[in-house]
């Protein structure tokens, strides 16, 4: 078991290293992406640009530049090219909005995903099941930003019961925090509810045919007890591991679209803005930050699986 965990940790560090190299290279490969232009402004003279390149080390070979940037990231002193603001401070400032979004939406989509999944499995083939399936298909077919726009239009402009985007810290105004986030929570959740309920429905229908469920029935247990204690326990495992990964991605800025539509000023929106300005340091930090969460949670999921199922330990 210890060997498995160590191996998984080494793989994790390797993936993070590779991701940082890849992100760095993507932006280095852009012909118009010359960072001296970002720093000196469009009208800067070649001489100023040269001086900037010397100052920041852009004249050095690419692997040295990579080393310098990564060193700064680990010192916490990396600044953006565009506004020269400390990137890690900026992320810390944006994180509360993203965390509020992720936690609220995560609870909603897990709860409703399980609820709808169980209902449609129990009513499989009946009208309720069909309508839930149709709803979840519409959910996964609607782009998040379109749904967000509709919610804004209806609740913020027509009914004027919700604010038109933005974020208010929980500590300043709890009610304002809630009204600003209720829309984004549901918009972000719809897609995941669609996915999770369908995955769970399939899992439950598979599990219901297992021998141990028949045994439980033969013992005379009630249907409710069988569903909760025997069927759901097993069918929930893959759903929860999916949840771990999706949740990690949202914390790491994966909710770019929801954050932009509702102007939440979170990590994802910061990433989108920085990408559009070809500002390498923030993008590098945010992708590594996201990848770190995703890789960490997938490692945790793997370890939990290996703990539960010894076969994985041997083959992995």
């Amino acid at each position, binding site marked *: 078991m210890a060997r498995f965990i160590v191996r998984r940790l080494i793989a994790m560090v390797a993936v993070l290293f590779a991701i940082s190299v890849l992100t760095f290279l993507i932006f280095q490969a852009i012909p118009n992406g010359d960072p001296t232009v970002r720093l000196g402004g469009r009208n800067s003279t070649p001489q100023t640009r040269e001086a900037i390149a010397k100052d920041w080390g852009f004249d050095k070979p690419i692997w040295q530049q990579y080393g310098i940037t990564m060193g700064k990231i680990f010192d916490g002193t990396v600044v953006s090219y565009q506004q020269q603001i400390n990137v890690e401070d900026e992320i810390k400032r944006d994180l509360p909005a993203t965390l509020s979004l992720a936690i609220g939406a995560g609870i909603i989509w897990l709860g409703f995903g399980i609820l709808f999944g169980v209902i449609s499995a129990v009513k499989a083939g009946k009208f309720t099941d069909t309508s839930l399936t149709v709803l979840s*298909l519409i959910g996964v077919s609607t*782009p998040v930003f379109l749904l967000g726009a509709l919610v804004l*239009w209806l609740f913020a402009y027509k009914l004027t019961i919700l604010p038109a985007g933005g974020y208010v810290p929980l500590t300043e105004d709890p009610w304002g925090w809630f009204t600003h986030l209720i829309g984004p929570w549901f918009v972000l959740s719809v897609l995941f509810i669609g996915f999770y309920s369908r995955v769970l429905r399939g899992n439950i229908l598979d599990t219901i045919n297992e021998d141990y469920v028949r045994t439980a029935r033969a013992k005379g247990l009630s249907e409710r007890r069988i569903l909760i204690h025997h069927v759901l326990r097993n069918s929930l495992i893959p759903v929860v591991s999916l949840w771990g990964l999706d949740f990690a991605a949202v914390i790491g800025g994966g909710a770019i679209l929801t954050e932009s539509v509702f102007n939440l000023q979170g990590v994802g929106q910061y990433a989108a803005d920085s990408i559009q300005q070809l500002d390498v340091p923030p993008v590098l930090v945010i992708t590594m930050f996201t990848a770190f969460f*995703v890789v960490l949670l997938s490692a945790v999921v793997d370890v939990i699986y290996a703990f539960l199922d010894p076969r994985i330990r041997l083959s992995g």
Partner: protein
Amino acid sequence: MAVDPTAPSPGVPVALEPEAPLGVGEIQGEGGVGPYKLALRRLRRNKTALAFGAMFLVIVIMCLCAPLYAEHIAHTTPSANHITDKITVRGEERDVVSPEGVPTGPTWTGKFFFGADTNGRDVAVRLLYGGRNSLEIGFVATAITVILATIVALISGYYRGFVDGALSRFMDLIWAFPVVILGVALGTALALGGLDFGLFTVNGNSLLVPALIIGVVYVPYMSKPLRGQVLGLREKEFVEASRAQGAGNLRIMFREILPNVASSIIVFIPLMIANAILLEAALSYLGAGVQPPNPSWGTMIGDGIRLIPSAMHLTLIPGGMLVLAVLGINVFGDGVRDALDPRAEVRIEH
């Protein structure tokens, strides 16, 4: 009972599902029914899937006819501005774009059927041309994903060992990036610089750029499950038999193993098209997909969202069209999966 998609030969008679209302004589024609024929029969019984598939097809045909509509009904082009024009709707004269900059809503007549945008362009015409772009990207991206993922899966599943390790790690790498962040990063980078393959170059504003990005980003989602199947299949007796007959690696991969994973590949295709269209819309919305003045459903929605609430039709119309198209192909794809491989676990991230 489900049809085993890994059945070694498509000619082997397959047990029918108990509810299949087919005459016995019909099944036992010449040598039984192949899994594909059976799947087709099952799909033909699924009226919902067929109806939604037909809806998608109608949208595709409508978008293909965009130039005809533009020329003969709307009498304009997707990028022609009519800001200062006036139109007469049912005897009433109105500005295409009001002096305050608010474009007219749907007129429900030949010209400006769905209204105009802020540049005084005909939304209906742009909707069809934009649909052409969105669908083209969806199809090209899907082709790229399917080809690359199949090759990667065959090679890493067949050769195993070091090759598999290297390829799988690389796939994990793409997988670890959030799809939208990776897509936006690549899209912004390439939209500015274009691509230079040496032999030919791709302009930054070409539709190939988003198609290529979307195609590549989704490769691991398809290659991972396929690789697992190939790993299992290469141990089967029919592969051994083929090798005993002197078949080379390539022949075994493409003639023996590929036909056995074909049903999984087919299941992926419609769902992949749906997701490619959705990702195109997301990238275009963030400015990293189709570049203006080229329309696409995503860019149109993106432009429209900036004008909520004064001109809601600019968001609702392309949005509605996009949802209808994606929903159509999704429901159809669901039917295809149920018919071919009811137990397949297909999940593509957004």
